[in-house]
């Protein structure tokens, strides 16, 4: 469960501060599938980065699965990212010059998994997204849709409780986009909380709840 209380975020712009998130109160229950929508520059990615523990905030509280998140414990945050959160980004965030197998294995390589378990688990994750036959290709040899499926495989390999997707269909044609959303929905059906940032109405409407954000505040 994700719980934000009176959360504020400022960006430094030169000597000035830019108030990017304003007193955000937000609760997302386990197993929800939520869309975050809003204009460009509204603060969607900022919010998601904070939820995903890759960025910090300035005031307010953040509880993840009932645990209060402290901003300054790098090691703990990294461990949480590794075990509890999977990311799917618009630009895929893959290591392009490495193999599909390597890319999907990364969370296991960076985590505590034993070497001998990595390959079977990786293949299993690739099968789930239908990429098992592409495993020895380099990531940069895949199509856009395949890349995003690879990113999903990587996001789910550690069986996280939360998947964060920042415009996952943004770089894809609509048919491929639908496939990606279906994959995420399937994951959600299996119990994973899914948060999707999107500009696409059909995508947001397929989610259980829509959170709207404008100028850094929820509306």
């Amino acid at each position, binding site marked *: 469960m994700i719980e934000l209380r009176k959360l504020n975020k400022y960006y430094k712009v030169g000597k000035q501060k830019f108030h990017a998130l304003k007193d955000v109160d937000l609760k997302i229950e386990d197993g929800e599938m939520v869309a975050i929508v809003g204009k460009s520059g509204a603060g969607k990615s900022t919010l998601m*980065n904070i939820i995903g523990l890759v960025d910090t905030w300035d005031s307010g509280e953040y509880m993840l699965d009932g645990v209060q998140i402290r901003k300054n414990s790098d090691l703990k945050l990294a461990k949480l990212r590794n075990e509890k959160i999977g990311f799917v980004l618009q630009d895929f965030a*893959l290591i*392009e010059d490495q193999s599909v197998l390597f890319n999907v294995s990364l969370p296991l390589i960076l985590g505590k998994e034993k070497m001998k378990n990595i390959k079977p688990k990786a293949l299993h994750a690739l099968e789930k997204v239908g990429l098992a036959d592409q495993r020895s290709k380099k990531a940069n040899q895949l199509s856009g849709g395949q890349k995003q499926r690879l990113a999903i495989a*990587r996001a789910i390999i550690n069986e996280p409780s939360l998947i964060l997707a920042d415009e996952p269909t943004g770089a894809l044609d609509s048919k491929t986009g639908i496939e990606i959303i279906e994959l995420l929905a399937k994951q959600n059906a299996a119990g994973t909380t899914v948060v999707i940032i999107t500009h696409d109405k059909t995508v947001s409407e397929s989610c259980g709840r829509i959170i709207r954000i404008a100028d850094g505040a929820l509306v």
Partner: protein
Amino acid sequence: MKTVKLMMCFFKKNPVLLLFVFLELTISMILFSDQIGELQYQHYSLELYQNSGLAECDHFTSLTVPGLTESPDDTAEAVFEAVRGTDGVEAIGISQSFTGIDTADLDLERELQRKYVVSVLTPSVFGSLPLKLSDGTWQPKETITDSTVNVVACGELAVKHRVGDIISIAFNDNSGTENIMKLKVVGRVAPPGFSVSLNMSSNAFSADNLFSICNCFIAVQTQSNYAVLSMFDPSYDADRGMMIRYKQDLDPASLEQARASLRSWGYLTTPDEIVENTKTLIRRDLNERFPMLMFFLIISSFSMISSVIVTQMKMCSNNAVYYLCGSTARRCFLYSGIPAALVGILALLVNIGRIAYYHINLDFWHYSKPKVLNGTTIAIVAAYFTVTIFIAILASYYVFQKNTPIEIYRKNK
């Protein structure tokens, strides 16, 4: 194992850059160690000189030639005689050498033949050379009756030959006929293995001029050696300079007189002057080299810093992905920092190897200034390297830890 996998990513991504970092570090360390080695050599030669019997001898080179004769050999002999005849002089130490060709190579082309220089030093003056032997002895107990000369190998030859080796060489004697002589290695001079040279003539003679040859066989003039050498009578090249020992009981006035008479026709350097000249040289060289050494340090630090920064920039998309997948910013940095340091360590190993094998003619600049490369050099170079890497890592760490890998990636996209 998993860490290795991630580090391989780094190598794969930056092969050319890393090659250049490797070359840059290797070369700057080579140049650095050579500078250090030359300074070490000057200290080494001064110490050697001060610990030898030579510390009581003057050095002399003639300018004018008494009894000018046609043949240069006779001239040298005449000069030596004239010095020996000077009042107050007890003995002179000269260095004579002859060159022979390995008989196994006689059929080869000239450039391919192995040539050996046998250096014969006056025993009364050079008998107390404090050159350490790594094994063997200066004068073996058993006398060899056949035509074998006992020699001590120095410099590179000490690396190539073992005690007990017998080398037969062909050389010309005074009448021009070719003879064959056997050299038996009875000892090896410990590194750095420089031997006496009196070839240098200078009005500022210093200790490093005195010990400046390596790669020769020293034939100590034992009785058996003397017998063999005079049997063959090889045609010697005598070095122009000489070391002069005065009579023990000479009063200061007569000593001054003897010196004055020698000074009138040549360069005379007293022990005090030799020490002073050497120290001046060391000071001057240090002053000249110190900025150079600092320059190397700064240049290589800067280029290390920039290489680390460039590699980290190239790695920033990788780092962002590692970060997302559960690595801390510090770990991301190390996944490329450690392999970069490994490249540096490889360069250090190459340098240690070069220093260790220095005597086996691996040096490109073999005929440049003599230098001493040893454990101390390795320690200094290793310290230099550590400082360089440390500065580079620290500086780039400072640059990269201000932001998370994600932000760095976003900013550099």
